[in-house]
């Protein structure tokens, strides 16, 4: 990994920040600099750690099409997630994956580029599954309109999915089309007290497989609570909650939604720290992470997706080196989404990394032949077989 830097110059001071107000201006901005990276509201600073000219999409904002009975909307990339969630909520709809950092101001384009989904990803899928189409500008200044505007479409390569998690390194997104779902009539939150991480893991596995169809299953290692979210008609939620309470009698509490962890988790505010990493994993390694980092000072963990995603929050960058070593030893990769410094930690072949550097390089070359956008900030990948 690169050396995690302790401090970082503020890019908005020493880097050009272009803020186009129209699609034409956006294209001009991309064409007029040799090296460009799109940003939204910069809620995830490590992802835009670069010396390229930053092109900010925040003035390219607004929902351009929304037809509730189609279950779709189209919005400009700089549209704040909150504007979208509010508009959808007025019509009883939502993005079921708990969009991340909406409260912090994240834009739709930034959410796609970062590839972040919250706890709700568990039930119906993540941001990748709800993205239907993308209009973006290539490094050569051409408009590419990939995917479609209807909920089902199997024509051509699924380029929109490739943009998810691409950190703006393949193009500048201008407009995105999403699928949406009806909001559940009511939601209900439960907490199950667990005395060990292992017990928490077992219980998450149990509920994840259950007939109850939970909307979210998270784990707070400190103080050891598995959080469950139910969605549906209120009576049904109550009845199911009662059964869960009976199953672990005395250990389950009803948590009022206003005090639940869901919003804090989506805002990555579950710990009092400024640096947050996203670490895709599986149950056993989640447990190992929890056990190893249990008494580490200045480190808070939060697990989502029944243990398949761990968010690690740390104070400053001082602990990053040991966390990097730990992730490497577990074969996990971590993406730093909050804080300052390099965005990559851990192993080069954790979940999501395409082992086979040639493919990754060839795709970058195909998407961006003139190297208008920075390289993906990942370590050199293991040579292919």
């Amino acid at each position: 990994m690169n050396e995690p830097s302790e401090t970082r110059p503020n890019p908005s001071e020493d880097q050009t920040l272009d803020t186009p107000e129209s699609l034409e201006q956006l294209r001009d901005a991309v064409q007029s600099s040799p090296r460009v990276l799109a940003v939204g509201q910069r809620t995830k600073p490590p992802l835009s750690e670069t010396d390229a000219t930053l092109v900010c999409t925040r003035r390219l904002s607004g929902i351009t099409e929304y037809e509730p009975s189609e279950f779709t909307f189209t919005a400009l990339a700089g549209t704040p997630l909150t504007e979208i969630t509010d508009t959808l909520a007025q019509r009883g709809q939502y993005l079921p994956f708990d969009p991340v950092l909406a409260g912090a101001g994240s834009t739709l384009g930034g959410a796609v580029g970062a590839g972040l989904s919250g706890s709700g990803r568990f039930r119906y899928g993540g941001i990748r599954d709800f993205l239907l189409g993308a209009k973006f500008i290539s490094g050569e200044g051409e408009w590419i309109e990939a995917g479609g505007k209807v909920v089902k479409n199997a024509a051509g390569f699924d380029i929109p999915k490739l943009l998810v998690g691409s950190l703006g390194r393949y193009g500048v997104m201008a407009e995105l089309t999403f699928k949406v779902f009806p909001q559940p009539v009511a939601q209900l939150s439960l907490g199950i007290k667990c005395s060990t991480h292992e017990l928490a893991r077992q219980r998450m596995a149990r509920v994840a497989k259950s007939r109850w169809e939970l909307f979210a299953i998270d784990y707070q290692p400190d103080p050891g609570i598995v959080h469950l979210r139910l969605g549906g008609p209120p009576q049904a939620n109550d009845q199911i909650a009662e059964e869960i309470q009976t199953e672990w009698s005395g250990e389950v509490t009803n948590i009022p939604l206003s005090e639940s962890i869901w919003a804090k988790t989506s805002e990555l505010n579950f710990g009092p720290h400024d640096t947050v990493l996203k670490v895709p994993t599986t149950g056993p390694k989640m447990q190992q992470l929890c056990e190893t980092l249990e008494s580490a000072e200045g480190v808070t963990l939060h697990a989502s997706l029944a243990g398949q995603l761990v968010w690690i929050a740390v104070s400053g960058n001082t602990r990053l080196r040991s966390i990097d070593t730990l992730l490497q030893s577990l074969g996990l990769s971590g993406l730093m989404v909050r804080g300052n410094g390099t965005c990559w930690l851990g192993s080069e072949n954790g979940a999501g990394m395409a082992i086979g550097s040639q493919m990754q390089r060839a795709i970058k070359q195909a998407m961006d032949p003139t190297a208008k956008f920075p390289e993906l900030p990942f370590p050199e990948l293991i040579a292919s077989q």
Partner: protein
Amino acid sequence: MEPLDSLASIYPESRFSRDAAFQAAFESDGLTVFRAKPRAVVIPESAEEVIQTIRWCHEHAVPFVARGSGTSLSGGSLPVADGIVIALNRLNRILKIDPVERIAVVEPGVVNQHVSDAAASEGLYYAPDPSSQSICTIGGNLAFNSGGAHCLKYGMTSNHVIGCKAVLATGEVVTMGGESLETVGPDFTGLFVGSEGLFGVAIEITLRLLPKPEQFHTVLVGYDSLQAAGDAVSAVIDSGLLPGALEIMDALSIEAAEAAVACGYPPGAAAVLIVELEGPREKIEQERQQLDEILTSTEPFAQRVAVDEADRLFIWKGRKSAFSAVGRLSPDFLVQDGVVPRSRLGEALVRIQQLSAEANIRVANVFHAGDGNLHPLIMFDGSQPGALHRAEELAAKLSRLCIEMGGSITGEHGVGMEKRDFLPEMFDEPTIRMMHRIREAMDPKVIANPGKMFPGKEAPALSKVGLHPLEKAGVISRE
């Protein structure tokens, strides 16, 4: 040594064939209108053999086509003339079912239904359910991003493939995604799914499994117009319910289904709607009341709720048999697959009826109404001169109609050979160029399934259209 001999040396004699008679079985797929003769057919039994085969193809610049069960309805698994067919049916091991992480890791030749069967004892299942699921493979599903009747709620194949190991056409072996629902970095798995075999061959696939729904509530509703059935779909959607399935059949397809399987659909119905709710019993208890009220307000002339699982399957039987049943009304037919915005379904149907009348060709309609996914069945008699051509002309008009209405030329059957001329009508030039560049990144020598998806020169021999051999045998039916 003849280059083909070095390929033959990878395989025992029984799994390598240049024999014309043996190869005849691989000349076509579910779109029987096209045929092509491969140079050789190989039947690997290990991932390593697939890798070696593709490296051989790469070295000698010989085209290859991966083949699962050959049920593609768009000509996707049609051989490339003088290329190699890599038949993957024997790579059919389920490598792992992990009930704790709720995943299955499978080889590409595993049959879709077998995944759910293997996971059933753990209370889990694999959600995507193409009607060919008793025969089609996960590799084919992945390549086509296949759908089924239950996509509205849980999405297509892509939503359920979380990782994939593949050998690219360059011979490079890559691992994309993993066992977690989440990843970091660009979503290469998402790009690979739906690439129609143009990037290489998937050799190991990691699937997400879901808990089996505890209860189903299936309602069959009869309407006296297609419009009324379409309006009912909108009413259900607008109510905030999220059914597992919302399917419509028109009078002609009802007639065919009735004749084929005596499914007991309301006599005289101009359209039937099947709505299915699924979930925990407490939820279904509440939601069925809501659904009841909505359906009553749509003034159906007949309505029936499945009383038990057998009855539910009976209702679905009519729907699932609809396509093959059309074979009773017409010696030949083309299965179309297109998508329009759901709110324009009614309008699309009126246009289809007009086009059908103008061409004097009967069209039966079956659709995944919740997704706006149409499957018009264009009937013709292939023994009549020019009939196939006229049917294809009508099919082309229907594809263009979908594009014009802001939809897609394919919802689930893929572009393949059949729709390749329409891809440039759906996407503009820079976007198509970008797709070509991505393809070249994965396959610089253009040897992986060439001639599919993008317009090309080579057009294999046309033949008469008919039921897939497996349909004739009653093994599968279309959706």
